[in-house]
C-alpha cells in the first residue's frame, strides 16, 4: 500500500510538465558529466602531476616546463598551425568559387557534378589514406612518379622531404573535403534572394562586381561555419598523417602534429603527465579560437532565433 502510493507519487513527479524537460535532456547531462567534464578535470589534474598510479604526486608546472620548450613539441605545434592555416586558405576560396560556377545559370548537369564531387567524403580516412600513400609511393611505377616522369622529373621519394609531404597532405584534404564545402556554399547560395542579382544586373553590375558585393558578403554565415570546422579539423589532424606514414612516425617529424605528439607521449611512451599538459595546451588553443570567433561573429549564438 505504502510503496504503491510512493510509486504513484514518483511517477506523478516524473510525468509532470515541470520535470519532463529535465528527463528529456538527462541523457546529455549524464554523458556530459561522466565523459566530458570528468575527462577535462582529470586531464587538468594529471597535467600537474607525475602520474604513477596510486603514487601520483603533484609537481606543479614541471610538465609544462618540460614540454613547452621541447623542440619536437614546438615542431608539432607549428605543423598543426601551418596545416590549419593553409587548409583554410585552400578550402574556403576554392569551394566558394566552384559553388558559384556550378550555380551559374549557364551550367548544365548541376545535380550530377554536385553528387560526383561529394563521393570522396564517403571514404574513410583509412581508405583514402591507403590510396594516397600508394599513389605517392616511392616506386618508379607508382602513379604520381609516372605522372611527373611525363615532364621529365622524378622519381621522388615523396615521404622524405617536407614540401612533398605537405603536397600529399593538402592534396588529400582537398580531395576529401572540396565537395562537402562546396555543398555548404551551394546551400548558402540557395538562400540569397535572386532579386538582388536581377537589380544588380539592371544597374549594370558585372559578374565580378556582383560576386564581390553581393555573393561574398551574403555568404558570410556559411564562410564562418566552414572556417570554424576547418580550424578544429585542422588542429585535430592526426589520422591523415598516421595513414600516410603508416604510423605515428615520420622522418625528422615532418608529419608530426599536436595530436600526434599527445599520442606519442601518452600512448607510446606512457608519460601521462606530459601528454595531459599537451592536451591542456590544445584545449586552451581551442577555447581561445572560440572566444575570438564569438567576439568577431557570434557564430552559434546568433542561431538562437
Amino acid at each position, binding site marked *: 500500500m505504502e510503496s504503491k502510493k510512493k510509486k504513484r507519487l514518483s511517477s506523478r513527479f516524473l*510525468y509532470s510538465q515541470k520535470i*519532463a*524537460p529535465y*528527463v*528529456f*535532456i538527462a*541523457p*546529455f*547531462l549524464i*554523458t556530459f558529466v561522466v*565523459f566530458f567534464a570528468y*575527462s577535462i578535470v*582529470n*586531464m587538468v589534474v*594529471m597535467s600537474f602531476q607525475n602520474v604513477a598510479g596510486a603514487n601520483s604526486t603533484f609537481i606543479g608546472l614541471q610538465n609544462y616546463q618540460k614540454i613547452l620548450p621541447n623542440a619536437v613539441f614546438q615542431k608539432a605545434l607549428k605543423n598543426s598551425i601551418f596545416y590549419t592555416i593553409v587548409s583554410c586558405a585552400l578550402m574556403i576560396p576554392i569551394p566558394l568559387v*566552384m559553388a558559384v*560556377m*556550378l550555380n*551559374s545559370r*549557364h*551550367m*548544365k*548537369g548541376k545535380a550530377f*557534378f554536385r553528387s560526383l*564531387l*561529394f*563521393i570522396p567524403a*564517403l571514404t*574513410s*580516412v*583509412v*581508405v583514402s589514406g*591507403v*590510396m594516397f600513400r*600508394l*599513389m605517392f609511393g616511392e*616506386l618508379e*611505377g*607508382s*602513379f604520381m612518379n609516372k605522372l611527373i616522369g611525363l615532364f621529365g622529373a622524378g622519381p621522388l621519394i615523396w615521404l622524405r622531404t617536407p614540401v612533398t609531404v605537405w603536397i600529399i597532405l593538402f592534396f588529400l584534404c582537398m*580531395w576529401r573535403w572540396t565537395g*562537402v564545402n562546396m*555543398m*555548404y556554399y551551394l*546551400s*548558402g547560395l540557395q538562400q540569397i534572394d535572386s532579386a538582388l542579382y536581377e537589380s544588380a544586373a539592371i544597374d549594370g553590375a558585372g559578374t565580378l562586381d556582383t560576386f564581390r558585393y553581393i555573393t561574398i558578403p551574403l555568404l558570410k554565415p556559411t564562410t564562418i*561555419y566552414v572556417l570554424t570546422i576547418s580550424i578544429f*579539423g585542422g588542429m*585535430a589532424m*592526426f589520422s591523415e598523417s598516421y*595513414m600516410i606514414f603508416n604510423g605515428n612516425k615520420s622522418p625528422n617529424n615532418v608529419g608530426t602534429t599536436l*595530436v600526434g605528439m*599527445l599520442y606519442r607521449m*601518452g*600512448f607510446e611512451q606512457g608519460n*601521462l603527465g606530459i601528454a595531459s599538459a599537451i*592536451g591542456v595546451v*590544445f584545449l586552451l588553443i581551442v577555447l581561445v579560437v*572560440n572566444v575570438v570567433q564569438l567576439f568577431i561573429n557570434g557564430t*552559434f549564438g546568433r542561431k538562437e532565433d
Partner: protein
Amino acid sequence: MKKSPAKTTLLILFFIGAAVVTLLPLALLFVASLRPGQELMRNGLNFNIDWKNANLDEYRYLFSGNNAYFTWYINSLIVTVVQVGLALILSSFVGYGFAMYEFKGKNLSFMLVLLVMMVPTEVIILPLYRLIIRLGLINTKAGIIVPYVVIPMLIFFFRQYLSGIPKDFVDAGRVDGCSEYGIYTRIMLPLMKPAFAAMGIYEGMASWNNFFWPMIVINQNSKITLPVGLQSLLSPYGNNYDILIAGSCFAIIPILLLFVMFQRYFIEGMTAGGVKG
C-alpha cells in the same frame, strides 16, 4: 537573360576536369583490386593492367574465411548499428527537450552542448581512455560505443528541426490526454522521420569510418573494426596487399550504393547545422 553556349562549354569542361581528378584515386584502387597484390608491391599503384589476366580472385579471397577481413566487417557493422541506434534515440530525445520546453537552466545546458560540439574529441582522448579502462570496457565493443551515445551535433540538428514544428501539436496531445513522453513517441517520432534519415546517415558514416578511437580502445586482432584492420595491413608483408586493396574497395561499396539511393539525406546530413537560420 541570355544563355551563352561558350560559357556553358567552359564550365562543363572545368567540372569534367574536376570530376576526373575526383574519381582518379578511386579508379586506381579499383584497377589494382583486379590484380594480385604482389604486382602492386613490385610496380606501384598505377593504371598498367593486363586485362586478360584481370580477375576477381582478391574479392573471392576476402570471402574465403582464410583471413580476418569478415570478422572486422561484422565487428564494424555491429558497432555502427548499435551506436547509431542509441545516438539517434537519445540525441533526438534531448533535442526535443530543448526545442519544446522552457525551463530553468535551459540556456546554460545548451551552452554546454555547444561547448562539447566545439572541442575535438582528440583533446580528451587520453583521460577518456583511462576512464574506459576504469569502467572495465577496454577491448570491448561497448568501450568503442559508450562515449558516442549522445552526439551534440545530432542534438543541435534535432532541436533545429523540431523548432520548425508548431507547438500546437504538443498542446493538442496534452488535451487528448497523452503524457509528456507519449507526445514524443506517438506524435513527434513520426514527424521526425526525415531528420532521422539524415542524421542516421551522417552518424552511420562517422561510425563506420571511425578510426582513431577504436584503434585506441581495441588491441586484439579478432575484435578490431574494419578501418583499424585495414590500417594494420599497410605493411606489405605476405599477402597483406591482397586483402588491403580489395578490402578497401569493398568497404566503400555499401556506402556508395546507399549514397546513390539516398543522396538527398546524405547531403542534408553532411551539411546539417551549416547554414540554416
